[in-house]
């Protein structure tokens, strides 16, 4: 009982907690080896097989999801299309520069779709917009904290 008490006291020490947590997490992760892991192939927002678009010389590879600007919607298999009335339009949109780039070269699909109007924009800003609110809030808060601590405590401003 006495040694048990000592162990219990030791567990309350903050310095040991991350390591303890890591061990516990490791034990749970090992379970992952034991159970069957398989991908359910009916997923939301599926994408074409890797490299299939670029091998087909599609200048918009790997993010071409169909659709033409302002006429036809792209194919986006969202969870609740009924809550996103303009779904697919964002994916079909290409900015004028992007159209220029598309005509010039075959290999700039990523850049084209990282500029406004890509599929990722559709997901990040439209159908799953709240994720990005949080994501950028997390970054902002982390930065606020870091810069506050840096400005007030850790930055060597006195030597200037």
């Amino acid at each position, binding site marked *: 009982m006495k040694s048990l008490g000592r162990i219990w006291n030791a567990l309350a020490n903050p310095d040991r907690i991350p390591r303890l947590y890591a061990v516990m997490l490791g034990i749970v992760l090992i379970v992952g080896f034991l159970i069957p892991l398989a991908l359910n*192939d009916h997923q939301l927002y599926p*994408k074409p097989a890797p490299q299939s678009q670029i091998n087909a010389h599609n200048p918009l590879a790997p993010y071409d999801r169909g659709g033409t600007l302002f006429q036809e919607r792209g194919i986006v298999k969202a969870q609740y299309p009924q809550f996103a009335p303009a779904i697919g339009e964002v994916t079909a949109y290409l900015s004028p520069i992007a159209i220029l780039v598309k005509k010039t070269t075959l290999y700039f699909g990523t850049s084209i779709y990282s*500029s406004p109007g890509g599929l*990722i924009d559709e997901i*990040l800003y439209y159908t799953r917009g709240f994720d*990005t609110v949080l994501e*950028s809030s997390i970054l902002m*808060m982390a930065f606020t904290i870091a810069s506050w601590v840096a*400005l007030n405590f850790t930055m060597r401003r006195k030597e200037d």
Partner: protein
Amino acid sequence: MIVPDVVSPVVVALYTPAIIVGIIAGLIGLLGIAVEKNDLQILILTDLVGISMMIFVCAVGTDLAESLVLPGLVVELAEILAISEVLMSREIRRNGKEVALIPLPMHMDMEILDTSPVVIAILLIAVGAFESGFTGGAVAGGGILFYVLSRTMRGVPSGMWEGIAGASGISWCLWLAGFMVFFVFPQYWLLALFLAAFGVFIKVAFKAGLIGVIGREEFKKE
């Protein structure tokens, strides 16, 4: 059909090995954390755990998974940033801030720091501006970071710091406005898209640039 109904068989076949690799990587990282005594080393090792997490997410192999990798990345970055600052603050308090008293002459003659920064920074910012959004923000931020880091001017006026931080706060609001437009007036989705993309871009780029300012305080002391 340009987009298939189901996930491609390649991805399905790769899923199990990917997850196994993720678990192994995570286990190695966690093992390292479990045996490590040094606080800083644990912080470095958490990077491995983050990588394992990203493997888990991207193994799903859909567009959704890709867009979920991005928040994971950002969270990792944000937490490392904040926590390393806390660690330094703690150590400075514990040591009574003796560092600042010793002057540090430092001579760093690196050719690359004199010639290349402008070009690289401009290139990166140009690429980032074209891409916009998170990716562009991070890329352009890398450019700004590099530029700021290699300039020789010293000292950040507190006002400027707060100004830049404020600008990125405002762009965050811009972004939020875009987000609201998406749901309130879906017919103006294009406007919303641009608001969102460039709001996030400005925000992320500025933040990353400010990291460079902090870094310069450390490395480029004359």
